[in-house]
């Protein structure tokens, strides 16, 4: 049996008091405990940003890499040892700005990774600049008269990319978020969860009450069919008075690993090097 204590880390948390990341961390720990995973079976990969500090705050294998490069590290790690449960974690800047290209291609590649984006709609760690998901008109020191671009909708991009699992969570609803994370980990393939996470220091627009007033659980809506791509596309556009949370889209697709015969017997790291095979390789040069 695994308990929440098994996931305790000794590293002191450097987030601001009241930050949504605390709830997110709790939801994550609960999800992992709930799945019965042991810390050494998990590897969490992150980039740089407030969100990306997360892996230090729980007991797990962790790779805290570069800003924006969360997904390629996670991809290499998972492909080299697909027996690990690999979670990728980062902010909206990390994932949608600097890492935007990897995001699009990771969804296409469909490696079995669960990707948690702490979407506070702002660059937190660098002190509050406009991010790709900041609202149009968002005022920050890089856009003092308000940003002129509409926000990126990462869920729409995910649905357009036929991502295997597309969901939105909210740090103000820990049980729901924890279940979403569990579902994401259970899903075989690339699972993407955009998580609304209030930043109390820099986002004065999308605050905890702002989200709280708007979010609703889509799974409680009757008849919503996450396998219907068109309705997912429509639902994912909803952002205003009401903001859906839950699993918006699912697509049953083979994973990269399943299609790779090289991984059929064991993981890459498990495969021995056999020097006897090499003379044949060189024979072809004769």
């Amino acid at each position, binding site marked *: 049996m695994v308990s929440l204590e098994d996931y305790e880390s*000794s*590293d002191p948390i*450097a987030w601001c008091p009241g930050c949504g990341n605390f709830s997110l961390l709790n939801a994550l720990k609960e999800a992992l405990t709930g799945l019965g995973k*042991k*810390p*050494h*079976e998990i*590897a969490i*990969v992150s980039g*740089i940003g407030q969100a990306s*500090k997360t*892996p*230090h705050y729980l*007991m*797990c*294998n*962790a*790779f*805290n*890499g*570069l800003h924006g*490069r969360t*997904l*390629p*590290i*996670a*991809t*290499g*790690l*998972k*492909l*080299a*040892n697909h*027996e*690990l449960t690999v979670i990728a974690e980062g902010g909206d800047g990390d994932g949608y700005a600097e890492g935007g*290209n*990897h995001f*699009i*291609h990771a969804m296409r*590649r469909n490696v079995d990774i669960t990707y948690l984006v702490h979407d506070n709609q702002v660059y937190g760690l660098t002190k509050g600049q406009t991010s790709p998901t900041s609202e149009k008109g968002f005022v920050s020191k890089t856009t003092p008269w308000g940003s002129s671009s509409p926000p990126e909708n990462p869920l729409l991009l995910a649905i357009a990319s036929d991502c295997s699992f597309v969901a939105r969570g909210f740090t103000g609803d820990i049980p729901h978020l924890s279940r979403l994370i569990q579902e994401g980990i259970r899903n075989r393939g690339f699972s993407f969860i955009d998580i609304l996470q209030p930043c109390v220091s820099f986002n004065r627009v999308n605050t905890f009450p702002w989200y709280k007033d708007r979010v609703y659980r889509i799974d409680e809506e009757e008849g919503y069919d996450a396998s219907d791509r068109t309705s997912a596309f429509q639902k994912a556009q909803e952002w205003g008075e009401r903001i859906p949370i839950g699993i918006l889209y699912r697509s049953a697709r083979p994973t990269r690993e399943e299609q*790779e*015969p*090289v*991984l059929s017997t064991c993981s*890459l*790291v498990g*495969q021995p*090097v056999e*020097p006897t*095979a*090499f*003379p044949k*390789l*060189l024979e072809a*040069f*004769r």
Partner: protein
Amino acid sequence: MTLDISIRIGGQAGQGVQAVSYALGKVFTRHGFYVLIHQDVESRIRGGHNYAQIRIQDQPVRSIRDRPDVLIALDRQTIDQDLPDLAEGGVLVFDGQATGHRSGDPNHIDLPLEKIAGEVGGGKIMANTVATGAALAAIGAEIEPLLDYLEEQFREKGRETVEGNQASASAGHRHVLEHPGPHGPKKVALGTPQGGKLLLSGSEAMAAGSICAGLRFYAGYPMSPSTAIMEYVAARARAYNILVEPAEDEIAALNMAIGASFAGARAMTATSGGGFCLMVEALGLAGMTETPLVVAIGQRPGPATGLPTRTEQGDLAFVVHASHGDFPRAVLAPGDAEQAFYAMARAFNLADRYQTPVVVLADQYLLDSYFTVDGLDPGAVPIDRGKIVQPDEAGSGGVFRRYAFDPSGVSPRILPGQSKAVLYACSDEHTEEGHITESAEVRAAMMHKRMAKLEGMRREAAPPEDTHPGDGEIILLGWGSSRGAMREAVDLLRDEGLPARMLHYCDVYPLERKGPAERFGEHTRIIGLEGNYSGQFADLFQRETGLSVTDRILKYDGRPFSAEEIAGRVRNLV
């Protein structure tokens, strides 16, 4: 030196120039000769002007030659551009009908390549096979070995293809033999096949060397001249249990490799300078997280896109200093296919033993050229994974001190998921546990720890190859792919009585500080010789050894050095 023949085959992209040179290379290698084939190609798929040149000797071929003895022209432009290069008394084989060229020179043989291919072979597409047969005849060699090669080469495509090619080759051969004029400046008999020797390109050597070193994960994005490495690995991925991931860009490629290496798989990527530009942040990440990493670079002329299909040694200074901040790395620059094969095995060992990035610096000339090699031993460089703690020794859980201080700079590592303990790898400055720190003391100590590896690698760097230890005051100092041309140039110069001597570095960084000085007398003159504008290695050598490089012979027109060119330029200097 009893035999020394060079044959150049010129034509448009898509006409099969390379296939001719490769077929000749195979035949000669199998019959106990040594060849060196180099490619001069444009950055396009069809048309334009390309050539391949093969030099055949009965001893290892060191260098290309400026002037071929035989020129096979598959198109008109070859006649216009390459004929002036033909050695005196050399033979030109051309298709008068297709090119509209006429010549009264008895050494110029008009051979209707396309017509013959159409008549006896499988159509125009076999014109280059006709040319291959003609090339053999032009130097007086028998046709049978080529027929054997064609049989084997096309067997899978069916009898018709085999026979069409064989008939084309024979007809080309016959036509030249029947030509009245002199049949070429030199004669060579192929004789009976002799097993043993290999023919392979620099790319193949690096790819095969990596596979023999236990490569498990390759992520890459195509970029000339490195693409053939990826393609070779991809073709053999299933046979050798390698996962090849085509990445969306070079940033992804290197980060994926780092992720895989962190997991415990030997991982690499290959690219050229432009792609490497995009990798330098991740290079520093490997340095900071102490993740083993191997990157192969095929240099081409820069900056920016430059000359994509040509050669240069212009990325050394960049690679040695790439990424912000100080961290340890090693750079190896093999001189030919054989060194390239072993350099990859050594690179993987270094990366694992020092848990840091290792760059293998090749160039278009090395990668695209084919070399005859006496043999390659996949066991010659035993695999050494360095300090990996076995799962049962990693303790019963908790946090493994991944960055434990150690005077060698190298801390034991565990692989994630292989034991009950967990580890943190961190791109920020970190504690021994791998957690982010702000401490000035820990920072300084971690810098010491990491940089200690550089001294370790320096101690075990292979010393430079010195052709005439203690003998020769004119030192040709070089690195990487100019090795062969330098070696031959030294011979040429010594034949003339000049006290020439080569000092060639394969292990270009870090390099031993004191060693070289002890080898030289007082009156030594060091001539730096490299394929770039500024003399990048000369600068590095001076910085590290404190010795002065007196002169620099530099080349930056996208073409490789020949021994003759080097000898000539040294002569002008001294």
